[in-house]
């Protein structure tokens, strides 16, 4: 906890036409861009955002002892009563589990013990994956709000939605705290709160090759709303020339074949954008078809495949 507190500082600096507040949360560099010429106000708004980010992190990080997630994961099969916010996140996750036909599952985090996506060729054995899969499956959990009961050995992990949730929560607080146009960015998952006035838009860099066939970095212009990216060009495994992306299918315990390297989606909230990009990843080769059916704007990077 001590180190964590030490890292919890805010730096505010001036950029071209706006002030930027920076801090670190959820293992990501985070920033708040405020369209204002007032470092004090920029710091106040950044502190609101950072405080919310750290609160969500402390409450839902599976790495912290004593929080609600930790208590659930160490319940050893016993029922645990959860608070209202946790119950809402669990309800939301249940909806996602249904929407994805079981491929998105907050109990799939235990698979991380087998899969380390570091660019190496350390592919776990099939029996090892099968072994861990007995602890995966939301259908094995008993959820009757506010009581959650997991089978012994099962764990939950809000890693798939936590950051986007924190971004949207922080954005809500900013909307109440100020009338300014701001950009909240937690490691690439972001929300533009209100349309900027002094500029046309916020410039956001993403990796993309589609729909632009000519490859390279793309700059997106975001006026208002959320953007989230799933996939990471640096997080993968290669074995027998097969590239395993880091999105795991909770039904199989294996990475999704033929998934794009990354998908960026624009949606009204960061949470919606993040879910759509993750669910698209789970569609593998049909990611683009899935996104087309959602009628959202997206940018898909298939590296050299396209």
């Amino acid at each position: 906890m001590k180190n964590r507190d030490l890292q919890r500082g805010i730096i505010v600096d001036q950029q071209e036409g706006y002030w930027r507040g920076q801090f670190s949360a959820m293992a990501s560099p985070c920033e708040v861009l405020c369209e204002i010429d007032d470092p004090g106000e920029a710091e106040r708004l950044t502190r609101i955002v950072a405080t919310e980010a750290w609160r969500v992190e402390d409450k839902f990080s599976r790495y912290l002892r004593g929080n609600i997630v930790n208590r659930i994961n160490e319940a050893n099969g016993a029922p645990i009563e959860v608070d209202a916010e946790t119950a809402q996140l669990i309800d939301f996750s249940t909806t996602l589990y249904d929407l994805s036909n079981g491929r998105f599952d907050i109990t799939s985090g235990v698979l991380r013990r087998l899969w380390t996506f570091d660019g190496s060729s350390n592919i776990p054995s099939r029996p090892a994956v099968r072994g861990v899969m007995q602890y995966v499956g939301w259908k094995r959990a008993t959820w009757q709000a506010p009581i959650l009961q997991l089978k012994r050995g099962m764990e939950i992990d809000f890693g798939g939605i936590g950051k986007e949730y924190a971004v949207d929560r922080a954005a809500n607080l900013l909307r109440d705290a100020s009338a300014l146009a701001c950009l909240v960015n937690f490691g690439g998952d972001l929300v533009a709160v209100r349309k900027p006035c002094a500029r046309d838009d916020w410039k956001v860099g993403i990796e993309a090759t589609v729909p632009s066939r000519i490859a390279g970095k793309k700059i997106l212009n975001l006026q208002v709303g959320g953007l989230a990216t799933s996939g990471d060009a640096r997080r993968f495994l290669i074995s027998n020339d097969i590239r395993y992306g880091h999105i795991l299918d909770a039904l199989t315990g294996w990475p999704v074949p033929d998934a794009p390297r990354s998908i960026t989606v624009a949606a009204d909230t960061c949470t919606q954008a993040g879910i759509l990009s993750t669910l698209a990843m789970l569609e593998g080769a049909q990611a683009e078809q899935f996104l087309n059916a959602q009628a959202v704007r997206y940018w898909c990077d298939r590296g050299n495949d396209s």
Partner: protein
Amino acid sequence: MKAKNKKSITGTLAAATCTLLGSSALEPVQAQEDPGWDFNTSLLYYGEDNDRVQDLSLKALTRRTFVDDRFLTVGLTLDSLTGASPNGALPQSVPQTFTRPSGRKTYSTAAGQLPLDDTFHDSRVAVTANWQQPLGRLYQFNVGASASKEFDYLHLGLNAKISRDFNQRNTTLSAGFAVAQDELDPIGGTPTGLTLMLDAADDDDDDDDDEGRRKGPRETKDILDIVFGVTQVVSRNLLVQVSYSYSDTSGYQTDPYKIISVVDGTTGDAVPVIPAPSNGPSHLYYFEHRPDSRAKHSLYTQGKYYMDGKVLDVSYRYMTDDWEIDSHTVDLRFRWPFGGSSYLEPHLRLYSQTAADFYRLSLINGDPLPEYASADHRLGDFDALTVGLKYGWKTSGGNDMSVRLELYTQSGDISSSQLIGNQLGRDNYPDLNAIIFQFGYQFGK
């Protein structure tokens, strides 16, 4: 199963998110790609063996992205052609002399050699512009223009295409057309088809009759292309495209620089001009003459198969026209990515065509002249093979580079029934080998 995968979940997700975040109605998202420039540049070298055609070609394609998926693409190509190309005459066991296209000088070919016109050198500038934009949610519209200029040639063209997605974007139907007008202003004027190649005109020799008979004005041709296509996503790994195209060309299609040897009906040897002129063709040669209309039908089918990042791309084209040329093209590419940011792409292309009905090696002295005749090897029966390898990689700056090396070999086939007397022992249609090297660089700004 398929339908389930692609159902819209937006409504359910929006409601669930609203419950989770407790936020009231937000402004709808507004995000677009930054209007930016992308550049796709390449330098290509094409070189035929035996000092035949060499082409150095520089291409630059730039695309400007606008909001709402609208694109403007502008392309520029510069070609520099040098070298010699066959003039259509047959090789002989004696040297041959020809009048240059300019009509002012002569050039000679040694005994046993395929006659090549070495005045062949040209620069070409070509520009294209294309505008693409969606129309509604399911239509794409595309309109473009093209122009190119060589010292004796001008091309102007317009094209348009519309496509529509069906079946949850698994099927795309498209229809397009292109019109072009090409104008040819040959050096030395346009020769009349199937008339004799004349002596080079001396400055002090006023042969007015010849000038008037041989050299016509500039010529034009009009080209109309129509294409219909369907693209179908067959499965998560397979994409198939089929298209039919019709092309109609009317107007001057003869190659004004190509000739055809007049031979003896028994020996097959070219008929010498007696007495041998001091400044003119050594033998009898006619300018070639082609029909002024040509209708082509072609059917193209392509399959792309994705396997763990590898892509197998197979295509086949069948073309048939009313000149009786039928051709088959099979093209195979396999893209094999490795090491995260590089790929190798072997390429194999097989081509085979039958000869035009008016293609002939030579004309027989004394026989009535046919309506059309050409000895241009490109209208003959031949097979060609291209074998190549491309290597592409991403630079540290995120841009794409590639190098490609290809070998092309073409071998003609002349049925022995066409060969007369001494022609049997000669290589009337030597194989052609060429090397292609290309360097490509794509970057954005």
